[in-house]
């Protein structure tokens, strides 16, 4: 107990005697720990944001995209092929059992006006089931009804951001009139807030109108009856493989795809996307962590190097200490303590710098970061361990010196 107190005092004293060298020695660990903390924060932040976004879409969701076309070996992106139709959605609803709901949409960007205010936002043409499928209820008023869709009624449901832009924060817009591309719409509902997506996109910056109204009065009558995407929500996630198989069969049949030919549509399940995103984020984190760990290792070697030099330089000091009664373990403890003090101080500085850097990154680039307490505690302990590991060899070397040989050293 007392020995450790004395040893820590000794270590601090000898480190203070050479502040520049001590600082430079710790620099490797500072950079290493700083890198670990900021990289892990970045990875964790990305993962948390992805998970949140995926949860906000709903994990029971299956999305169907129009497919790709292959022209001369060059595959175009999703949506370049034959479009999906409302008929496809209806057929899915009719023929596949165990679904919670089927929805689809067409969307476009347009300007919306109310009184003197105007705002450019995304207009979504959706069927009545959309709210249920996306698990996105209204906060006030009602969502689009079947009748309103059937009659192409000029009604609109607003996302909270749009409502705030047009009517002011906290004002209930239900009953008001807005104009979309100069067509007057009556506001019948206000959605609850869904927040930002992982890519910083505001999901509440949206206006929903009946699908039929959208195709006939707002988005243009070309491609009538076609949709951008079909969304299916399953009653249970366990049904996923079965549902995907059914969907594939049905769509291949409706789109007359010959056996052996590739699908010209894509089916993505949210759980699959969540998994992919999570795996990617984890691979990313681990990669960053590996790079950061290497710099920590290099930092440790730096400490060992300086301590070895220091042992040689201070051989006489060691001899003097032994001559007045220091035992091998006192010398060992002193040098070990110096190593751990160097690395732990570097660790603390690195943690502070890492937290600072991750804040700066998220401020400057807008990427979400999440400082994980586990990473903080872990990298502190690891840096202390680096000190013990890399300090042990020089310390033992010092403690094994013969007092008279050490005294004669010059």
């Amino acid at each position, binding site marked *: 107990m007392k020995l450790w107190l004395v040893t820590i005092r000794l270590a601090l004293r000898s480190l203070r005697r050479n502040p520049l060298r001590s600082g430079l020695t710790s620099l490797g660990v500072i950079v290493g720990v700083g890198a670990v903390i900021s990289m892990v924060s970045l990875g964790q932040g990305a993962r948390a944001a992805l998970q949140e976004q995926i949860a906000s879409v709903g994990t029971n969701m299956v999305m169907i995209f129009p497919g790709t076309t292959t022209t001369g070996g060059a595959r175009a992106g999703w949506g370049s092929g034959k479009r999906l139709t409302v008929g496809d959605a209806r057929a899915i609803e009719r023929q596949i059992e165990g679904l919670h709901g089927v929805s689809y949409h067409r969307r476009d960007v347009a300007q919306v006006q109310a009184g003197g205010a105007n705002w450019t936002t995304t207009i979504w043409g959706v069927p009545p089931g959309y709210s249920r499928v996306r698990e996105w209820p209204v906060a006030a008023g009602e969502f689009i009804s079947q009748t309103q869709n059937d009659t192409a009624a000029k009604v609109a449901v607003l996302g909270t951001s749009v409502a705030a832009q047009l009517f002011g924060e906290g004002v209930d817009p239900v009953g008001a009139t807005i104009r979309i591309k100069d067509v007057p719409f009556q506001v019948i509902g206000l959605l609850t807030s869904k927040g930002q997506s992982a890519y910083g996109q505001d999901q509440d910056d949206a206006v929903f109108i009946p699908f039929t109204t959208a195709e006939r009065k707002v988005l243009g009558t070309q491609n009538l009856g076609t949709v951008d995407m079909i969304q299916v929500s399953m009653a249970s996630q366990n049904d996923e493989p079965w549902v995907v198989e059914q969907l594939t069969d049905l769509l291949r049949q409706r789109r007359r795809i010959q056996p052996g030919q590739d699908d010209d549509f894509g089916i993505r399940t949210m759980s699959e996307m969540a998994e992919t995103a999570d795996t990617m984020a984890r691979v990313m984190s681990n990669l960053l962590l590996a790079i950061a760990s290497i710099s920590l290792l290099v930092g440790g070697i730096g400490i060992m190097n300086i301590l070895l030099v220091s042992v040689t330089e201070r051989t006489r000091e060691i001899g003097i200490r032994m001559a*007045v009664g220091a*035992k091998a373990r006192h010398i060992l403890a002193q040098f070990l303590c110096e190593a751990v003090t160097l690395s732990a101080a570097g660790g603390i500085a690195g943690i502070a710098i890492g937290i600072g850097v991750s804040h700066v990154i998220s401020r400057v680039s807008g990427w979400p970061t999440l400082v994980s307490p586990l990473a903080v505690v872990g990298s502190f302990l690891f840096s202390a361990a680096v000190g013990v590991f890399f300090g042990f060899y020089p310390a033992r070397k010092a403690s094994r010196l013969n007092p008279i040989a050490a005294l004669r050293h010059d």
Partner: protein
Amino acid sequence: MVDVPPPRRRIEPPATVSTAVILTRGLTRTYQAGDVAVHALRGVDLRIEAGEYVAVMGPSGCGKSTLMNTLGCLDSPTGGVYELLGRDVSRLTPDELATVRNRTLGFVFQDFNLLPRTSAIENVELPLLYSSVPPAEQRPRARAALARVGLAGREASTPTQLSGGQQQRVAIARALVTEPALLLADEPTGNLDSQTSIEILALLREQHARGLTIVMVTHDDEVGAQAERLLLMRDGTVVEDRRQRPRSGAPA
């Protein structure tokens, strides 16, 4: 109830009945320098009583430092017996030797061997750090030891801020701070001018007058002549043991 036999008591052999601080028999020390063996000590028989002041002289390379280092437990003998205060220390472990150096011995070197860039008080305190002296007592004891060698007020000075004589005083204070039974000094005035040497020798005599046993190596005939007892060494052995004056501490 079962009768439990009483634990057998270990009977310690009685310690050597002797007032000798140092007792050596056939002490040898052989250095291996490459292929050649250098016999620095070739069988030294020595008995030094408590309270003696012994000077060791001899030509360069005759083994004076080797003897001092062995007596000071800085080095282990190759052969022979060394009893310090009646205890055989020739076969102790390194840790046990460290304890002996810390508790029983004080060593003064020719080149002072102070910790550089370290204040006088911290240098003097050094042996106490490794002792069982309570931390709160260490500073006052170091301060008292510095005062004892006439350096009160220079506690904060580092070696470079002190003259050679003052540095040697700090080294003597460091040797005295643990109240050792024996002070070993290997040419303590070897690096000092004559006036300063006189002062340092006076300081050592003062400590001797207070009852400290001192063994000192010197090259100075005058200094040797003043000692109560003079050991002359040649080629690793003591060739002459001359008692020049009655022991100051001994009954007439």
